[in-house]
């Protein structure tokens, strides 16, 4: 069977992801921005598939594209959009944003230049055999080696849920 990780797919997904990501920040209409974000997330799911992580790709689609973004759109639709589009944007955060973007870009460039030893090109080739039981491996790792970080992450989510309930309900 031929590999799916062809350069064509990579460039196709990369261009889709970048163009839609730019659309996310340039569209004035929040619904358009959210829809572009969905396209970006789907392209990322494609990347996970190319890296032989089908489970992560599926979870990306189910949770992010299908779950979280639906809630996003749900909230955005309740907001009065026409007014938002006409309003003048007065949040002058572009200096901070530029610095943050440059820092992230620098970090990525650094990893790209020096990460060759850390991420050898044969890295995922050695994991190709795991493709079949990828789901199982993730389960074993999450509940074995990475039990503590996993539980801490779920505790964080629990705190967020409790916070949302406290903020939404004045009287419990």
């Amino acid at each position, binding site marked *: 069977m031929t590999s799916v990780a062809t350069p064509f797919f990579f460039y196709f997904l990369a261009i889709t992801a970048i163009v839609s990501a730019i659309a996310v920040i340039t569209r004035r209409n929040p*619904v358009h921005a959210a829809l572009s974000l*969905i396209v970006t997330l789907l392209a990322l799911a494609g990347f996970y598939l190319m890296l032989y992580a089908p489970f992560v790709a599926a979870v990306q689609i189910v949770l992010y594209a*299908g*779950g979280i973004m639906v*809630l996003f759109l749900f909230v955005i639709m309740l907001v009065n959009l026409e007014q938002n589009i006409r309003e003048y944007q007065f949040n002058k955060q572009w200096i901070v944003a530029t610095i943050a973007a440059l820092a992230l870009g620098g970090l990525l460039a650094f990893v790209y230049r020096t990460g060759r030893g850390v991420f050898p090109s044969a890295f995922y080739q050695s994991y190709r055999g795991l493709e079949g*039981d990828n789901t199982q491996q993730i389960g074993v790792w999450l509940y074995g080696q990475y039990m503590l970080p996993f539980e801490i992450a779920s505790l964080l989510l629990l705190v967020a849920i409790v916070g949302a309930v406290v903020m939404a309900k004045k009287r419990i």
Partner: protein
Amino acid sequence: MIEYIKGYLSTGTTPGEAGNLFWATVYILLVIVGVSVAVLCMNWLERKILAHMQIRLGPMRVGPHGLLQPFADALKLLIKEDIIPHDADKLVFWSAPVVVTMTAFTTFLVVPFGRTHAVTDMNIGVLFMLGVSSLGVLGIIMAGWSSNSHYPLMGSLRSSAQMVSYEIAMGLAIVSAVLMTSLQTGTGTLSMIGIVEAQASQHTWFIFKFFPLGFLAFAVFAIAMVAETNRAPFDLPEAESELVAGFHTEYSGFRWSLFFLAEYSAMLAVSSIAVTLWLGGWMRPFPTWLGGSTWNMAFSFLPALTFFVLAAMCFLGTIRMPKIPQFRIQTIGLGTFGALLGFVGLVLLVPAVSVRVQDIYWFVVKVAFFMYLYIWYRGTFPRYRFDQLMKVGWKVLLPTGLGVLIATALWGLMPQLSAAITGVLQ
């Protein structure tokens, strides 16, 4: 080239696994045509059955017993004017039906109509189906928002709230079925074909496994899937008495028919998930109890028998047609249709064909059962109020799903647990 085409036939896997592009394309086309035909049949059957439940006749004018009604409807929708509201968001309005239809059809990539009768087998099959069908909600939201109108917006708000709530109960029910695949072998699977094979190797359908746990999980799924497809009694997003037609109020003509097509193919898709996970997929009933070559042969006649019964019903209708000149064309048409069905039945009697059709037949019969249930629900249940809907989803289905999941895990670990307890006691 010929070798390439022939080479697949001896592999005994799906075209996707064999990496055969030709057969994959053939299967995809077959699935698209099959689903479209099924939607046409479903359109006619729903009107007819619903009408008979309400002591009406249903469509009778177009063709004998209204058999050509779906075609007339399709033609009408195709030549109707395509209206886009003036203040609508054109691009989103245009792409919403496309998204809905594409996601509804894409889910059929992994539906196993038989051991080799699927486009492909994925090791994340069930998750893939869930994920792609959850993208269908986006299409509904896009449709409701871009129409720039009140009723569609209300409809899509309801729809997104409903789908997000019921997806959780649905996921929990699916997880408990997936858990069952891992019980005897120790390695579970998410692949649709793998799940059916697990049921074959455990000699039971998962609906009967760990009674009543399997049945409870199935019940949770069966309720959640009706809500997920926006059908009665959970059809609040398109409640005609409150919201005109819900999220597709502003759509007309071909775009509206795409929504129709997507709704019905989504119903077929979730029914196939239920059939695959709990009702043994393509397996015939009682493969071990009524095993042996005699029973195998008896069961292999059933596809042909079904078509013969349908043909007989057509001929009965032909005889009962009024004997007046105005009905001559109808009588001839119904007779020809009956003859066609009878011919299909005869073809299915050929051993080479009947062996290959067995799996598909049983899968389709089980899915058809669910489709009948959908119509039955619509004919009998009154619509839920929105707070009742949320109550059922969050306070009944979700706790049941969680409880069933935990109980399934405990039951599955019973040998290890009892061994550990006796170890501690000693």
